């Protein structure tokens, strides 16, 4: 994402995505096949958690991608507000639901993992609670983006919101951590603890890379759709 200027023009973006999407799709599918083998078959079960530890291979990458996705939204928002890049707005519109989706996957898998670990589908764990608030921030972004009859207004309003959100995200994280240590004894086991065995690390990193590619692929495809949608709405002759 270093140089968005290169993609600033939707038509140029269209040529770029037509070149990249097919090979990216194949790469993602292959990596996913290998990743699933590594995660589900090749890697050993945990001596305490058994096979439930395999949830981590989806849970942890989803959490990282959800956070990176919000960062991407903020970068796109800044590029829209500062340089008024039309493509930034369309890409943000495309990326927000994908990021929210990964966030939801993270919450869902966290809850499924929590059942055998804690004996409950939901405990107010600091990380999960922070992810839940991130999910709310995503929801606000998506709702605001679509709340206007004039889509351009929604784009700019959501861009302002995400910039404030990204400033506040560390503060929210810090407060929730504080709140958690205050209200809960530290004895509760944490998801994805700090000590990760090397036999698990490789599949984990592989899945992070795979799901990240999947995120990029989905965002590119949805951006294409958003370009088409905006063109139809404006009913302007094809440039």
């Amino acid at each position: 994402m270093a140089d968005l200027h290169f993609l600033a023009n939707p038509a140029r973006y269209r040529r770029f995505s037509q070149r990249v999407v097919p090979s990216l799709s194949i790469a993602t599918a292959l990596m996913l096949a290998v990743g699933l083998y590594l995660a589900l078959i090749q890697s050993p079960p945990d001596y305490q958690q058994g096979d439930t530890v395999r949830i981590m291979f989806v849970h942890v990458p989803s959490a990282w991608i959800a956070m990176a996705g919000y960062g991407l939204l903020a970068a796109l928002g800044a590029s829209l507000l500062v340089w008024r890049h039309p493509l930034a707005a369309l890409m943000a519109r495309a990326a927000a639901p994908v990021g929210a989706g990964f966030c939801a996957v993270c919450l869902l898998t966290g809850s499924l993992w929590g059942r055998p670990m804690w004996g409950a589908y939901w405990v107010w764990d600091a990380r999960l609670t922070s992810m839940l608030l991130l999910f709310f921030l995503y929801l606000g972004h998506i709702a605001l983006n679509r709340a206007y009859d004039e889509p351009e207004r929604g784009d700019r309003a959501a861009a302002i919101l995400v910039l404030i959100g990204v400033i506040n995200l560390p503060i929210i994280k810090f407060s929730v951590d504080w709140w958690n240590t205050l209200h809960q004894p530290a004895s509760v086991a944490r998801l994805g603890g700090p000590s990760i065995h090397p036999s698990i690390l490789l599949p984990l990193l592989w899945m992070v890379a795979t799901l990240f590619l999947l995120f990029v692929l989905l965002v590119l495809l949805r951006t294409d759709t958003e370009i088409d949608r905006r063109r139809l709405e404006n009913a302007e002759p094809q440039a």
Partner: protein
Amino acid sequence: MSGFAALVARDLRLVWRRPGDVAVVLAFFVVATTLFPLGIGPEANVLARIAAGVLWCAALFAALLSLDRLFAADFEDGTLDLLLLAPWPLELAALAKCCAHWIVTGMPLAALAPILGVAFGLDPSVLLALSVTLLVGTPTLSLIGGLAAALTLGARKSGALLALLALPLCVPTLIFGAGAVEALATGGDFGAHLAVLAALALVALATMPWAIAAALRQAGE
């Protein structure tokens, strides 16, 4: 600075002409708080335990409820254009609007909360602390809510949307506001909580006026 003072004075005068609008917000605060003992049961130790959290949440909802009209009234009658066209920074105008909002909601809520705290069986020494946390914390709510109000100008379903945008951003203030009161009751460090609460207000003060001004400019386009 004269424009800033004039705007605060104008908004206060408008509220003075229609005191009912503020009274409704305060009445909501009282009624919403009263529902908790009815829903949870009147056990004194339970109520005293949850009082700070309940009062803080109710104050948060009450503040958001009143924010819906903060910029919408100016947007609808065209005076927002006059603010946008004023020959001084729009950031100051945004701050003035939030300041006026805080005077007519944050301050009365802070004054009202100890009275409700008595009904929850809070210790008298805690009541003043509750009021102080609200006094320090509600400016943040006015500023964050002001941004949500500015962002939703002209949007469909703006009321519920405003709450969806503002509530996640208000979480730190809620945690440290209610946490401060609880810290005092359980022998924790009240001062540290209050300091964080004040820091949150300063962060909001340093960022929100710019964001609100940007939101108002794009609403004017």
